[in-house]
């Protein structure tokens, strides 16, 4: 058997698991000019390691190493049946599926936008349950299967505007958050609702690095949460949410910057006080609790008056950002009388 054949590769030549696992990473990051490429060129040792990862790949397979990449279709492309189409966003040009699923801000799987699609392959969105606690009649949990049956699923085509100045148009599948809140039975003290994401260092490698205060948390005021526009998404493009998009369930609040949409939610907590979110902790002068899309309120780093539409092409330029991301009619009244410059 091949396995028993004496290897003619000395152990020191065999690529370490880490280097091997990251080989795609090295290649992918080279052009972006990420850490790896520069380190590889600056340090001969690392450079050798990268080269080796290519040359000993075959040898690794030969001696039955356990680190061959997992099958690429672990759970992806599971169709959702029995959802209705809504009129939201009909006529908008959708961002291609490939872009929606390969360009993700999901730091639990790495800070580079291409990383989540790769690093989330081993993530297990099922079995899954969501705990409800805080200002509720009584604490309870609900499984993801029950969530799928909680309310009729519908497709909603929403614009998504990232605080970094880019946007997408995504056909989500989900149900109004209000339905889940009705099931959760908050008591009269509940003024805010907080969403807590999963942070499992085994399945989510990014959470090993203290870039944000894990677990990721986000929050909404109750009236925002109850607004019919606010949905819990369980799918996109007719299929269950890909892991990199927040499987199995994520928040979508289309008039707010994308980071408000907590992904892989494991806990929903009702509170009487405004929760301090991960991004508020990370940069209090940059990220506020409300984070409404607002072209009039500048961000210290990014232009908020215009945005780049993903998938529009190299020469498309930018489009004007709309107040409340174009959803003023539905949500404008929520903020009547509020200073949105102060409550950014």
């Amino acid at each position: 058997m091949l396995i028993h054949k004496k290897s003619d590769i000395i152990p020191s030549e065999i690529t370490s698991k880490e280097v091997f696992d990251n080989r795609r990473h090295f290649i992918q990051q080279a052009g972006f000019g990420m850490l790896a490429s520069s380190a590889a060129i600056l340090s001969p040792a690392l450079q050798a390691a990268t080269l080796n990862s290519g040359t000993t790949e075959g040898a690794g397979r030969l001696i039955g190493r356990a680190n061959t990449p997992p099958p690429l279709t672990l759970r992806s492309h599971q169709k959702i049946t029995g959802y209705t189409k809504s009129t939201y966003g009909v006529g908008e040009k959708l961002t291609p599926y490939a872009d929606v699923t390969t360009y993700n801000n999901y730091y639990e799987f790495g800070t580079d936008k291409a990383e989540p699609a790769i690093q989330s392959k081993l993530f297990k969105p099922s079995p899954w349950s969501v705990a409800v606690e805080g200002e509720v009649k009584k604490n309870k949990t609900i499984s993801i299967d029950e969530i799928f049956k909680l309310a009729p699923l519908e497709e909603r085509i929403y614009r998504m505007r990232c605080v970094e100045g880019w946007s997408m148009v995504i056909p989500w599948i989900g149900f109004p958050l209000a339905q889940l809140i009705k099931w959760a039975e908050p008591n009269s003290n509940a003024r805010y609702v907080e969403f807590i994401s999963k942070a499992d260092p085994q399945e989510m490698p990014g959470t090993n690095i203290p870039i944000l205060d894990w677990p990721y948390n986000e929050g909404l005021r109750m009236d925002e949460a109850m607004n019919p526009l606010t949905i819990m998404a369980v799918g996109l493009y007719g299929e269950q949410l890909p892991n990199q998009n927040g499987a199995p369930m994520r928040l979508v609040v289309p008039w707010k910057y994308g980071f408000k949409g907590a992904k892989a939610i494991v806990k929903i907590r009702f509170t009487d006080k405004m929760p301090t979110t991960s991004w508020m902790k990370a940069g209090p002068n940059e990220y506020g609790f409300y984070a409404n899309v607002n072209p009039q309120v500048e961000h210290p780093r990014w232009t908020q008056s215009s945005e780049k539409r993903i998938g529009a092409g190299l020469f498309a330029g930018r489009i004007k950002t709309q107040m409340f991301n174009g959803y003023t009619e539905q949500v404008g009244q929520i903020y009547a009388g509020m200073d949105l410059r102060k409550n950014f």
Partner: protein
Amino acid sequence: MLRSLSATPNKAQISRIKGLVFALCLVPLARLIWLGFHDDLSANPVEFIERSTGFWALFILLVTLALTPIKLISGRVWQIQLRRMLGLFMFFYACLHIITYVWLDFAFNWLDITKDITKHPRILVGFAAFMLAVPLAATSTNAMVRRLRNNWKKLHQLVYLIAILAVIHFWWLVKKDIREPLLYAVILIALLGIRVYYKTALADKSKSIPRD
């Protein structure tokens, strides 16, 4: 190979090395063109090109700034002959970076560009770094070196400021994961630190030698 590297290359070898470095410096551009034609510049191609050209400008700048420390530490001097070419390639990628920003990102919308530069410190320092690099590129010819004499050296010390601004420009770009800009900051500090160390060490040495 190693032996030939440690020896001072002759004129023919130098021109071969220069040719090689020239070709290497064009690889990042060739890669972008290749990826562009294969529709493989990620979901956000403009950002991809901005990041890539920005990175290579910074990378080549750091390599340029490493030539003198190599001389100080090893006594080797021939690599200094690569400095002008590398410096100009830094400027070349910085130009591509700016062109991408002005054309592909902002589609020549000068009002928005002005707002972006004045309202965001990150853009401002990047813009400043580029503007400071313009006179250096313009005075890179032999004729200009001769014409400016001692002032040439003074002028070209701006490169240190440009490098510091470039690293800050990158640092302020990242939202929270500062590992990569931190690496470049450390490299830059090391490259500048070596210069300062040798300068002060030499000054001390000349002081401590008794005159007689």
